[in-house]
């Protein structure tokens, strides 16, 4: 190829990449702009601190915010430790065999199961069989199961980035396998594990289908008293306000406000993780 043709090919290639980048950015910017424009006016202190009034056409969405926070906490309680422990077992202890291959395949496949199927599974297992009822607990555990494949895979990827020489170097000094993992692998894998895990949690916080049958309520004029109570959740509330409400015109601004709060919540989670990760990295370097 001549020098000129090479230059043209390179120009075309870079242009394609730039177009792709602009398209992705544009989608995010338009989405954010639209929601902020239409929901920004609704977002007041009263909106996030009051109960809904007059058939959810007035007042705030405090129960939905609290419900989503509590459900996500239950989800984290199940998905973070179980995801990390499973990843540690798979990456550090399990020898390559047919069984571990099947386990990995099952985990990958679970991440492809539609969320509504998790919802139905949650009804059977947690609501009915384990008699947790439609509650924060049932919904959180259902979301936790749904998040597990993500947290396992992300944690395992983080563990894979730790060079083997850290493990061998530690073993060669008379460390037990667990000592080597605890002191010379986990501290360095933790930032990566955290990132993947919280991305999974943020996704779970925005899910509607798995909580619809397992605990989320259409409307509750009070706050939950325990994790065995049903609850309102931001994504489900948004779904109702956007499509199921008897007075859609009146509910519309409130729906956008709800969407904005949900977005801020998820962005907030991601920001916290980014800060924690940066701090852990800095500690490791200095």
């Amino acid at each position, binding site marked *: 190829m001549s020098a000129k043709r090479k230059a043209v090919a390179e120009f075309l290639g870079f242009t394609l990449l730039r177009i792709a980048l602009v398209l992705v950015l544009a989608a995010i910017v338009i989405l954010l702009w639209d929601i902020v424009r239409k929901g920004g006016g609704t977002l007041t202190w009263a909106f996030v601190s009051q109960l809904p009034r007059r058939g959810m056409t007035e007042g705030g969405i405090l129960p939905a915010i609290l419900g989503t926070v509590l459900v996500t906490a239950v989800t984290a309680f199940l998905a973070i430790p179980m995801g990390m422990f499973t990843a540690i077992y798979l990456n550090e202890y399990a020898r390559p065999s047919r069984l571990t291959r099947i386990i990995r395949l099952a985990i990958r496949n679970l991440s492809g199961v539609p969320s509504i199927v998790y919802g139905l599974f949650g009804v059977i297992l947690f609501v009915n069989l384990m008699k947790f009822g439609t509650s924060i607990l049932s919904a959180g555990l259902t979301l936790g199961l749904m998040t597990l494949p993500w947290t396992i895979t992300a944690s395992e990827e983080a563990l894979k980035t730790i060079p083997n020489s850290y493990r061998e170097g530690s073993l060669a000094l*008379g460390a*037990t396998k667990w000592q080597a993992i605890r002191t010379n692998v986990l501290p360095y894998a933790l930032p990566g594990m955290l990132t993947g895990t919280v991305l999974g949690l943020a996704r779970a916080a925005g899910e509607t289908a798995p909580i619809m049958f397992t605990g989320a309520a259409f409307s509750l004029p009070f706050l939950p008293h325990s994790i065995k109570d049903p609850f309102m959740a931001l994504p489900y509330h948004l779904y109702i306000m956007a499509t199921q409400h008897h007075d859609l015109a009146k509910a519309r601004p409130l729906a956008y406000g709800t969407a904005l709060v949900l977005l801020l919540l998820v962005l907030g989670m991601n920001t916290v993780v980014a800060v924690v990760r940066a701090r852990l990295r800095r500690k490791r370097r200095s």
Partner: protein
Amino acid sequence: MTVSQAKMETRGLSFFYGRKRALKSLDIACAANRVTAIIGPSGCGKSTFIRTLNRMNDVVPGTRVEGTILLDGEDIRAPKVDVVDLRRRIGMVFQKPNPFPKSIFDNVAYGLRINGRPSKARLEEVVERTLREAALWDEVKDRLDENAFTLSGGQQQRLCIARALAVEPEVILFDEPCSAIDPIATAKIEDLIHKIKEKYTVVIVTHNMQQAARVSDFTAFLMLGELVEFGTTETIFTTPSNKMTEDYITGRFG
């Protein structure tokens, strides 16, 4: 050399990666307070051999060992032997310097900390002593809190040697310790291997014949997993009895 002087000894040692036999019935004795060099062309099994001595190959799936490995006359593969304790008694320095992403001080202190709860005074004493033994103290004494990654490659390798010395092993295995560092740093490490043999038994794998000639008392020449010749370094390098040894050390192949 009689058997009674051997600190470590292998008898009929064979090693298998799956079906492939990488070591073929090796009898090698490593004398106490001496340096034994293992030389041979790439893929001859040098590294495999040295990694069986502290059972580092245990962690590689699909491998198998046959024969006997003795430390002070006792089989290190006997069921009652605790592999963790064994690895503390037999230290290892790897081919590529592998400092941990911790401070210089914490790197050297690592082995002591995982083996107990040493006092601060004891840690400081051991860190200084081993860094001196590894000829690194003067270069790092004012920056012990800095991350070990800030050191040069040669300094990192000497740090790894200090780290290995800190747990007071009886034997130290060097797996091509100079293959990733420059000649000046190499000279420093050879110098220090020479010194530490007063206290430790040293086994060194090297693809550099001059290095073997410079640092070792005994040399074993391996080819394709077989022991071709084993004797004092002087004999191997001046009057080898085997034609292949002679061809290799005079640079005709390898």
